[in-house]
């Protein structure tokens, strides 16, 4: 078999038996197999860039938070020179967790077990009773520091990887960067978290959440049907689809990349027409951005957007802005426009990480953001809307977190595990006329291409040599 993958599980199954690149199918066994899970931790989570948080979570020198890179706990710390470092949260002496806290401030991280001490950058300082040289004389101090990850900041977001010599974060983003810039690099002051992230555990395989994050628009129609029944989308004019019909919201453009990043660029024309009564075709991007500013932006901030972005990006932001999408492997962004009962729109800005906690468990981490320049009253409204609709108690996302466990449970069935997930609804139209951005683009009703791209990159990493 020419395309057979070299990766073979202990029962002889090859990875190429589980994913069919021709028919775009993935066997459910991928969602439950413990052996595959172990390989994912090494081949994906120890190799790609992982989202860990935002620099505004640790604004002062010495501030730190503990986070997870796949199955490994890490310290994310700001040093005296204001530089952010990510180090394995494991003492190289006897393997105790260096910090058992969620958050704190210190310039010396001391292991509570035997007192080995480390700087925020992971460097070894020393062990107690220096004259006894309790770190031994076999290794120099330089070799006794915490294992350091490579760190890259983007729009204040903290990414890290163990793949020290691999591609840069920018290379990893690839064509998605053009679009990410319109979300994360909108103002000179930058974004800020409105507090620590919500965290909760779901008995589901991490990939159930992550393949959905790769821009599954279709599920919204059914799983989030309530949005059109009594929720924010219930009171639309009939011309846009009656009552519970969310179909018109499913149109737009979708973008996918060779590294599994995906974006849903949802059309704003209807919203602009409804709010302003004007024909969007007759408005310039600047006018549209002023009439309906992006989440977290008010009209007074629009001139800054006009200065920072080129014509193409401004066109995108005012026509079909990326509203939901995923960072491979386990991140999701939401920059959504929420209709209010009074006819106005309030934005929400959130990022999720779905941290694997075993083959059948994940931790949902939800950060809620605004721009630093967003006026305080609007920040407060954005925060409340986000808490009410997204994350732990979110009226939208509680339906997602109740779905993934069922997929995970059935994936364990002796027969069910050979059932395939199908990604066979394909875009038949490429980028719409005048599309400004790069990447693979599909136009029209939401399709499966973005999610299939996610799986293809998963497969590529899982079968890559070394």
């Amino acid at each position, binding site marked *: 078999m020419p395309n057979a993958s070299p990766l073979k599980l202990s029962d002889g199954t090859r990875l190429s038996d589980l994913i069919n690149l021709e028919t775009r199918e993935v066997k459910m066994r991928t969602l439950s197999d413990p052996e595959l899970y172990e390989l994912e931790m090494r081949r994906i989570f120890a190799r790609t860039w992982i989202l860990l948080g935002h620099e505004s979570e640790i604004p002062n020198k010495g501030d730190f938070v503990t986070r997870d890179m796949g199955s490994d706990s890490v310290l994310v710390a700001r040093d005296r020179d204001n530089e952010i470092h990510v180090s394995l949260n494991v003492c190289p002496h006897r393997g105790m967790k260096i910090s058992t*806290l*969620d958050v704190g401030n210190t310039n010396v991280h001391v292991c509570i077990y035997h007192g080995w001490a480390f700087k925020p950058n992971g460097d070894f300082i020393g062990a107690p009773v220096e004259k006894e040289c309790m770190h031994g004389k076999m290794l120099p101090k330089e070799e006794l520091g915490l294992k350091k990850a490579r760190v890259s900041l983007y729009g204040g977001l903290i990414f890290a990887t163990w793949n020290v010599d691999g591609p840069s974060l920018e290379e990893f983003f690839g064509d998605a960067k053009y679009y990410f810039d319109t979300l994360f690099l909108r103002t000179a002051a930058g974004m800020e978290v409105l*507090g620590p992230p919500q*965290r*909760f555990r779901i008995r589901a395989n991490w990939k159930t959440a992550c393949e959905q994050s790769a821009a599954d628009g279709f599920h919204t129609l059914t799983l989030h049907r309530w949005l059109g029944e009594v929720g924010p989308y219930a009171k639309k004019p009939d011309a846009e689809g009656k009552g519970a019909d969310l179909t018109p919201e499913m149109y737009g453009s979708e973008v996918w990349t060779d590294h599994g990043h995906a974006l849903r660029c949802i059309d704003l024309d209807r919203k602009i027409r409804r709010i302003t009564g004007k024909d969007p075709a007759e408005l310039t991007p600047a006018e549209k951005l002023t009439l309906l500013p992006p989440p977290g932006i008010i009209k007074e901030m629009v001139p800054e957007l006009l200065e920072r972005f080129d014509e193409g990006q401004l066109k995108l932001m005012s026509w079909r802005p990326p509203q939901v999408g995923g960072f491979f492997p386990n991140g999701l962004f939401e920059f959504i426009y929420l209709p209010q009962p009074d006819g106005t729109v309030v934005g929400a800005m959130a990022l999720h990480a779905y941290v694997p906690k075993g083959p059948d468990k994940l931790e949902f981490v939800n950060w809620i953001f605004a721009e630093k320049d967003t006026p305080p009253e609007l920040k407060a409204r954005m925060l409340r809307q986000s*808490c*009410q609709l997204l994350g732990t*108690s979110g*009226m939208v996302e509680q339906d997602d977190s109740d779905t993934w466990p069922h997929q995970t449970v059935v994936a364990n069935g002796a027969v069910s595990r050979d059932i395939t997930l199908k990604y066979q609804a394909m875009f038949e139209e490429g980028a719409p006329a005048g599309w400004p951005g790069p990447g693979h683009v599909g136009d029209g009703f939401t399709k499966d291409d973005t999610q299939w791209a996610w799986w293809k990159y998963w497969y590529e990493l899982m079968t890559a040599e070394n």
Partner: protein
Amino acid sequence: MEKNLLEPTPLPPSVRTNRLAIGSPVYNEILEFLIDEAEMLDQLRLNEWRETLDKDLEYNLPLRLTRPTRELAQSVVRTVQHMHDDYGSISLRVMRVMDTKSAWGEDPPSRTRRLVTNLRVYKTEKENEYKVQSYLLVTRSRFDFDDFDLIPCERHDVIRKVGDTYKLSRREIIVDQAVIGTPNLGIFF
């Protein structure tokens, strides 16, 4: 201090000298109110429950962080919270469950049991308002799962006497978990 718009209005303090004796008439009435409330919520009589909420309701469920003993107060986070609701948004939550056929996160509904204990009632500066603290253990069973999700918490309420009845005007739910162990908070506390 400047009001942090991200946080809810601070609760009135629980003043020891203003505490009502266990078994006193108002204490008993409030205990009855909370026990009836638990019954309504366990039986999914959510529209009836909504009637017990006052229109100025603030309903919050802060985050918890694992922090050292000396930083205990900072283990409760009131900016980003798990729930941050008012009467309007709680009403929408109720409508979602009661008036749609698509609230999948709670349809079919969880089977829940709310055990209310350790009740303390304090007079406040307002004649008809009481600061009320109670422990609550919620057990939650979903689908055919053989395990229970447990949500132990302490509630800090402001309960107001309105005519012959009581209404809930403030509720802050302090959960014990920094990482919530149930897949969503689609239920009420």
